[in-house]
């Protein structure tokens, strides 16, 4: 089985990286290859990186409300790309259960809100990668 590879970062001007770094460490501990792209990512750049890196999942950690607009934009970009099987996973304490339900409807593979455990985070990413 090929190793799971994930592109991980934050959207736009969302500069809170604590969650993203924690998730990166969880995923690396679980044997996932993490391409950490940090801050300042618009959807097209995340997609381009995921295609270049041959990743199965794009994971975005959120601490600002920019995800409300960027997540569906990224889902649409993925669907129209050469790799429509790419999956998007979104996580962050600011995501409310109502937002989570809407994001899933919009095509986000998994949404992790506040209180998600390490196992839930790792499990959601692995499941999205089909591993």
């Amino acid at each position, binding site marked *: 089985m090929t190793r799971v590879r994930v592109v991980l970062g934050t959207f736009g*001007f969302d500069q809170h990286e604590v969650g993203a770094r924690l998730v990166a460490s969880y995923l690396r501990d679980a044997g996932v290859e993490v391409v950490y792209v940090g801050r300042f990512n618009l959807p097209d750049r995340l997609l381009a990186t995921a295609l270049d890196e041959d990743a199965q999942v794009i994971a975005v950690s959120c601490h600002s*409300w920019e995800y409300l607009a960027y997540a569906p934009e990224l889902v649409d970009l993925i669907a129209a790309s050469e790799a429509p099987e790419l999956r998007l996973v979104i996580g962050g304490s600011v995501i409310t259960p109502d937002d989570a339900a809407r994001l899933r409807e919009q095509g986000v593979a998994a949404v992790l809100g506040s209180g998600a455990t390490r196992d839930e985070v790792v499990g959601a990413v692995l499941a999205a990668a089909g591993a």
Partner: protein
Amino acid sequence: MTEGPGFDAPDAIAGLDYARDLGDPGTYPFTRGQAPSRRGGRSWVHRELSGEGSPARSNEQLRHLLEHGAVGLDVIGDAPTVGLFDPDHPYARHSVGTQGVSICRLDDFAQLYDGIDLANVSISHSLPAAFTVAGLYLTARRRSIDPALLRGSVINAPFFMEDYGYATLLPFEMRLRMALDTIEFATREMPRFHPFVEDTYFISDGGPGPVDEMALGFVELREVVRSLIARGLHVDEFAPRFVILVNCRMEVFTEIAKIRATRRMYAQMMREEFGARDPRSWSATITVHTSGASMTAQQPVNNVARGAVQAFAMAAAGVKAMEISAFDEALRTPSPEAHMVGLRTQQIIELETDVQGSADPLGGSYYVERLTNQMEEQIYARIREFESAGPPAQLFESGYYRSIFTDAMERHGREIADGERPHVGVNCFSIPHEDDVLLREASESKIAPDHAHAEAIARWRGTRDQRGVAAALDRLSHEAAEDGSLMPAILDGLEADATIGEMAGAIRRGAGLPEDPLTGTSR
């Protein structure tokens, strides 16, 4: 924490010398506080974090707070503003005004402060320091207010904010230079204003603990002091206006000890090491923002209790000003409901408790004095370690500080996720989501990005005197390539209606960088 008999006996502080280590409040080494007493109705400055949407909308928020008893204001910029990007930047479209106020030009400052008595209301700013000092100065002049009367402060964080708060994408040397230029300018022109707030809050929240919070803060502060002295200033010219803005987590006795140790260390450094002779230079002005990372998205009402405990501790520690991270902190910048709870919490502590009965109610406690000594020892040890590791520019380059922060963030997150650090409602005593309803609606309400403001700025751009704007930007870029103060060119730039984003671009260009590192474009 639970070693030993579970209490501190007198021998825990056996070597403590009252005159040398504590002193009366208001006297060297100021361990017991900056002011001699709390008598005469002098309380700490009550303020709450504000700023959302356009400058005009934020102005309404500020006026509302003043009407309800706030005696100071605390304004934070939105993410693009703090990063020196304008609201119509392509990366800013979904974040304009959502986490603070959008500010990019001189007229924005005029709108933000409209109707506010700038000579009497103290405004604390989490906004780009050089541009904010320039904007406040010019606004005062236009309103015929003597800038020498301006009060308040600005966070000025050349070291760590770039990687762990808001990136400006300016090189370290330029960030430090702009910080020093700002302090020099304000020291001369705005002598009541505090142009250097050493913000250890953001250094620590969600990452390094209290020891590294202060050690890293002191590393930055000490380098700023040395650099200003190297520019020919005497320490007594600027040190009296320095402020340290600290964090307060839930381990409140440790936090109180941290503040007392910091006051003692600051006094020693200023007098013994940097040669300050003015007692006002020896006494640290310490303000606090209570920990946002201690606030939970689960059961937001629990955060009211957390804020009250932290705020009471900070009142007992004798801070000069305070803002409480609000009950909705995990989800948003404060809602009007959260503002009111934060303000009322401070008023209850001030007026209904007797915490004001002593300038240092906990002084002499075996526990607190032992913790204070311990904090001092540990903070000094880390300062020595950091300062002997090499010059700051080199340590930023090599990733030395990056790894300190990264490790601390991961450790902090794991402690909560693994249940090692109890967080009520998160990793213990949690309840099903459907039962978690108290204050949830206020906490989950969102501020929409202010697209209209971004569009208005984009339209306004075309109406300016373009030649004047270009000339001002060229001058700023030229100055940035030389080594004089950037403040005159920044003042000219604001007056010529250049935007903060454009001016940051001109400064980057002068430093040999692309004007806009995000899009890779230049003018």
